[in-house]
């Protein structure tokens, strides 16, 4: 299958995360192994974009998956990698859940309440974006840094009024007297896009462009397989998500899977350097983090545009 000339690596290490998207499907079904019979593929699971950033900087992995927030931070810090694919656009998978007893009907009502979210995550970014869009001063809200399972524990104790978090905890919160006020999907519609981003080590992309190209095509075929038969895909992913098929299907539906062709739209990665909507998203994310005093400084747009692989 390595027909079109470019050489392929003997070995490649891919850092993935357990998120119900095309890459997880590729891994589970062994599609990459089929595509690259002569290349050894090592899959490494990661928990957070922070660790992916470290791993890629140390040269331990060639390809990785991280949220748009860690990637924005990484680019701002000149980590040597490029964005080659958007594994998913976060839709309803990450949402702000509020406890019904807390009388929160809208983001505005968060003032004076306790809201939990894992700091440095896409959910954290979404929460801050929601506050900004509604004109709520973050200082009037108590924002707590909690990991998902601790959010659930705190929720049960009624220690918190709301949480911006992802599945499966999100589902548990709504099941236990909570309801969704705003989702990442709605925020994305208002311009605060969050996504799970495929990144590749710059040197690797340079040495093996053919591999990246073919890997993207494998991802595309996985997206297609999902569109053709979501039930099958859900059944495949259910065990690795520690859940049943129906729930897995629901989870996949909360993320937006895009093919590379769709991502070529200027709204997403784009095809030309200065026409990449996603570079803009990364820059906005960076500036937003600066504004929120999360990071000291963010570079200009061109740096982000450079970071999109073409």
């Amino acid at each position, binding site marked *: 299958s390595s027909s079109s000339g470019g050489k392929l690596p003997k070995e490649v290490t891919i850092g993935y995360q357990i998120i119900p998207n095309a890459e997880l499907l590729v891994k589970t079904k062994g599609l990459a192994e089929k595509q690259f019979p002569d290349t050894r593929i090592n899959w490494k*699971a990661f928990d957070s974009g922070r660790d992916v950033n470290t791993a890629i900087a140390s040269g331990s992995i060639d390809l990785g998956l991280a949220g748009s927030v860690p990637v924005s931070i990484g680019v701002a810090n000149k980590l040597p990698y490029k964005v080659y694919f958007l594994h998913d656009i976060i839709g309803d998978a990450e949402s702000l859940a509020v406890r019904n007893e807390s009388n929160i009907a809208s983001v505005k009502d968060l003032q004076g309440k306790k809201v939990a979210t894992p700091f440095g995550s896409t959910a954290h970014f979404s929460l801050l974006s929601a506050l900004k869009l509604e004109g709520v001063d973050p200082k009037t809200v108590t924002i707590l840094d909690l990991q998902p*399972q601790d959010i659930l524990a705190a929720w049960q104790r009624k220690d918190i009024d709301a949480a911006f978090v992802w599945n499966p905890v999100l589902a548990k919160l709504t099941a236990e007297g909570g309801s969704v006020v705003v989702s990442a999907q709605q925020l994305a519609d208002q311009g605060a896009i969050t996504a799970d981003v495929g990144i590749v080590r710059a040197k690797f992309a340079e040495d093996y462009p053919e591999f990246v190209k073919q890997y993207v095509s494998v991802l595309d075929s996985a997206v297609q397989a999902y569109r053709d038969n979501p039930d099958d895909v859900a059944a495949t992913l259910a065990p690795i998500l520690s859940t049943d098929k129906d729930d897995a299907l629901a989870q996949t539906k909360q993320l937006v899977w895009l093919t590379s062709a769709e991502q070529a739209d200027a709204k997403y990665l784009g095809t030309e350097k200065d026409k990449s909507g996603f570079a803009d998203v990364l820059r906005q994310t960076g500036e937003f983090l600066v504004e929120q005093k999360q990071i000291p400084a963010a570079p200009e747009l061109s740096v982000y545009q450079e970071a999109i692989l073409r």
Partner: protein
Amino acid sequence: MFTRHWRLSVAAIAAALALWWGVTKLEWVNPLFVPSPASVWNAFVEICREGYKGSSLLVHAGASLKRLGTAFLIILATAIPLGLISGFFIRVRALVEPFIEFYRPLPPLAYYTLLVLWLGIGDSSKIALLTLAGFAPLYIAVASGVVRIPQDRINGARSLGASRARLFTRVIFPSCLPDIFTGVRTALGMTYTTLVAAEMVAAESGLGWMVLDASKFLRSDVIFVGIILMGVIAVLIDLSIRWLERSQVPWIGKDS
């Protein structure tokens, strides 16, 4: 000491299990966090039969034990000699201790990133983390054990012609054996404690990873299986260390 009254220990454990059963039966705590013994047992049986996320239980336990074991061998081979030497030579101690004192209290989570950066995401960074975690307690126990050796025991040995090197192997080392055993137990606890942290980054097997992964998906039954297994393995290791201690150091607590 442990064995003579093992009946008591067994009774205590049985009581704790009964309490657990009662508490979950009466639903005093959310089963999402404290699952019932029955469901934990079921999860255990299932994991035994089918493994967890692609690896059998043996592979998970084996992966963790391999990391722990390697780290522990490194710790034994470094902390004991260094502790002996720096307990004995004040100058070495003055040189070495600032660093040990400094890194010792640092949380593994704070410097794990650096280790990954230097050693990659493979087993070596994990083993390094475990090693660093267990090194300091053993080192400290050994070094302060040396300081506590009666001075005249050392004098006596040197009068009998013990060279520096043999003083270490033949007198200081055995004198510190009780301290070494205590230190080994603490160090083992410390490495073990760090296991989950070590398997947080880019692992796909290991009991720590299993617990961590399960907690992400709120599988508290699996979390409990993992925790209980880790606890049981640790207790078994500890018991064998104690058995070794009893059989090797029968003179503990007796006046020479």
